[in-house]
């Protein structure tokens, strides 16, 4: 009896432990991504669109705070609000009335600024087809284990988003760009957030797998701005991103909040427009997707107690003193050598063969000449 009791206790203990191990292993491999990227784009220019820059910078701030480093963030701002001459407080961009939160901060790296924010550059970043001399900070170097967050804000309409008041990107182009990314295995999962008027129209055409999309308003509705600031003179933020920022400020790298909470951000009572989302292309259940899977860069860490023996200490080699070779005396160049300049000979330009226009002109002259005076003169030449 006692043995039976003891055995049953023993077996239950093992079963429970087994379940725990499976659970932990399951959690370890659940998300499937190894690195995080973020592409944050503000597409509006001019001082009265201050709120779009503040939107993008507040998402940038949250994403940096939760762990994604600058090297993995591509930040595109179409105009500079912080050092704009109309800004009464230079080098700051505020998101709250009464200047509570400076989202610009002291440590910010903008990769694409001003005129560089174009539809072409945006699509090139997404698909990776950039000219070879583009520096690393301007590239999206993601692989098939990357989770990417894409945030767009600006002025938009039904099926398009306006870039800098001079061009636009359509929802079909965007969907095709994502399909290119999928074909080239440039993402594992992608979260697309858009805060513009009629934002839901931008994700209507997506057809690639593992995409989740959120928008601040449905088709036919306008996204509204939150509050103006009388000292700065413009609206500081849009409603959707304002409540999104409030939501993200409560998230820390170890939090377990999932996407279902994100869908509830900014209900119609606060936002006036109806935020929408789209999860049918996403393979996992949104309830099991953590916010930090996209907004943070949480690494899985494995502790080990092994010791590693390093080799001999590094010694710097003394470079062979080449005192015998060389040395002509160097001198500092004269900054304004007046006599040299006056007596400078003009540079001999390289001789180029005459180009098409000159050749054509001469051919015409020759033809007219020989036509007037007879073809028999030609045989003297050939």
């Amino acid at each position, binding site marked *: 009896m006692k043995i039976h009791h003891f055995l049953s206790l023993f077996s239950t203990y093992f079963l429970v432990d087994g379940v725990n191990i499976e659970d932990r292993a399951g959690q370890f491999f659940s998300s499937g991504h190894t690195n995080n990227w973020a592409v944050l784009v503000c597409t509006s220019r001019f001082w009265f669109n201050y709120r779009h820059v503040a939107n993008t910078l507040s998402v940038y701030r949250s994403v940096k705070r939760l762990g994604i*480093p600058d090297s993995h963030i591509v930040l595109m701002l179409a105009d500079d609000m912080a*050092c704009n001459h109309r800004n009464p407080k*230079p080098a700051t961009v505020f998101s709250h009335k009464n200047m509570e939160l400076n989202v610009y901060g002291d440590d910010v790296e903008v990769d694409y600024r001003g005129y560089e924010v174009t539809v072409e550059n945006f699509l090139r970043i997404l698909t990776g087809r950039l000219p070879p001399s583009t520096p690393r900070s301007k590239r999206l170097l993601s692989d098939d284990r990357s989770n990417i967050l894409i945030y767009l804000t600006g002025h938009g309409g039904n099926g398009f988003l306006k870039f800098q008041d001079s061009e636009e990107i359509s929802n079909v182009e965007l969907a095709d760009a994502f399909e290119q990314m999928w074909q080239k295995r440039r993402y594992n999962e992608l979260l697309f957030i858009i805060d513009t008027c009629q934002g839901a129209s931008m994700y209507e055409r997506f057809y690639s797998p593992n995409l989740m999309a959120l928008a601040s308003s449905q088709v036919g509705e306008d996204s509204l701005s939150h509050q103006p600031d009388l000292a700065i003179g413009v609206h500081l933020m849009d409603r959707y991103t304002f409540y999104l920022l409030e939501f993200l400020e409560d998230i820390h790298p170890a939090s377990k909040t999932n996407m279902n909470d994100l869908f509830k951000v900014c209900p119609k009572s606060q936002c006036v427009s109806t935020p929408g989302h789209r999860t049918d292309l996403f393979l996992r259940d949104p309830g099991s997707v953590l916010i930090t899977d996209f907004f943070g860069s949480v690494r899985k860490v494995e502790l080990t107690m092994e*010791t590693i023996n390093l080799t001999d200490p590094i010694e710097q080699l003394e470079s062979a003193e080449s005192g015998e070779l060389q040395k002509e005396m160097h001198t*500092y160049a004269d900054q304004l050598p007046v006599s040299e300049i006056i007596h*400078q000979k003009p540079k001999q330009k390289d001789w180029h063969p005459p180009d098409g226009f000159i050749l054509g002109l001469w051919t015409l002259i020759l033809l007219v000449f020989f036509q007037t005076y007879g073809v028999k003169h030609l045989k003297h030449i050939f």
Partner: protein
Amino acid sequence: PNIQQGRQRCIYGEVSPTEAGGGSDSPAPKPAASPPSVPRPKDDFQEELVIRPLHSGDIYTSFQFRTLWETDFTRENKVSHYRLFPKSLGQVISKFSVRELHISFTQGYWRTMQWGQPYLPSPPGAELWVWFQDSLTDVDGTWKELTNVLSGIFCASLNFIDSTNTVQPSASFKPLGIGNVTDHQIVCTENLTPWKKLLPCGSKAGLAVLLKSEKLFHSSFHSQAVHIRPVCKDDQCKTTSWELRQTLNVVFDLHNSGQGKNEWSLFKMFSRTLTEACPVASSSKIYIDITDNSQGEQFELSPATPLLSQAVVLGDRRTFSVYDLTQQITFGTMRSLNLLIRGKSSDMLRPLLHAERYVAGYGLQTGEIHTLMYNNHPYRSFPVLLLDSVPWYLRLYIHTLTVTSKGKDNKPSYIHYQPSKDRVRPHLLEMLVQLPPNSVTEVTLQFERALLKWTEYTPDPNHGFYVGSSVISSLVPSIVAMDTNNSRERPLFSSFFPSKEESSYFVRVYTEPLLVNLPTPDFSMPYNVICLTCTVVAVGYGSLYNLLTRSFQIEEPSPGLAKRIANIIRKMRGVPPL
């Protein structure tokens, strides 16, 4: 994790093997033996801050951070061990065979007449000058790649620099180099952040803790620059070492930052005080210019310091109070240094050379560029070299070039003009002009504005298009003898332009950039035209079509219900309807 960009540090040292976990009998680990001979570090870092109260009540602060490194980037085996010199810049130098590089980002315009001469001049916007090694063959391709790499390092839109706004001057900027003068740029914290990360101590220790963007950009003038060049290692100059200077010049305005009071302190200017010098710096000093204050009657400096230093800078012998941050007593009992300067500076010396530029004319067809150069010396004349780089869409008429001084024609002793090619390269005009004493020299040039293709307009074309500053280089006679011994013990701010002779010093003055409006089409025009045309066509053609193809018939009014039923019954019977 706080990952720093743009720089990697090689940890130079030894690691001792750690004890294995739990229950081992090995003795306590002893520190590893140091290598037999520790090589003398070949790099050196110095930082300094110069503060000069200006006559108008503003205050001018100039930071200089210099790293000297004895290495050879052109060697076959690549340099891989970086200590104080930032790796990102070292790789740029070796990959692109750069001999000298100067890049500056400036916001605001330097007011020479009110503020005097700056220690390091810079034009508004961004400026990049590069000299390549003689071994480089493809200069254009390398230039393009170099501008892209630098735009990534400094988060600036330098990738718009291409052949259409790059010049190769023949006489200015000796030795010959390739450069781009001032594309209009907005300078903000995103340019300051990577600049700060290039410093060995970052912004965590030493003078760089004062660099907080909120205060720095709330100023009348802000300029940050990086200068890389080879310098002589010693007096014989048989070998050269690489020098990297990072400079930051700020002028704080009396009313904006100073709240109207003639009282400046480090805390008021930078919202920080100093607590220590950078640990890797061999010298860390603050110089305050007290030349006009010999008896202490103009302004008062606290805390007091016994150290004084004299230096000849910009043709004048100036006296400085020195605070040495490597000495602990500078920080006093509070362990922090907050300099206080109370009072105004007296009248300053009138600068000998200064220049202005503006556009004259009306309408969107033609215009005239006027450049004025002032020589304020009472009896000496000196030559100046004027470099103008005008974009191709302002078509210059060189036959209208006139140079007049005191109402009379002044023929330049050297003119080099390279005409522009549409969409390929800009105009380049270099002139060597002798400025008579105490005079104004005016250079005028007429131009015509071109109409661009509609894709070439920027998204905000009604703002206008910028023309870069003119560069005026000159050897100005100096009041006191300049120091021609270029040894290394001088303070940094006086040793940037090496002097070859004692009677004059080299000065570079930049004019204002110009903003010209080009004839801009109405970009909403196509949409309006399409709407109007479609409406007219629809209304006009539609009405005509209807009139032509519609035929009119007379129709009986429909009969009442009883008659309709009767008609149905009659149809069924086969009888004609009513």
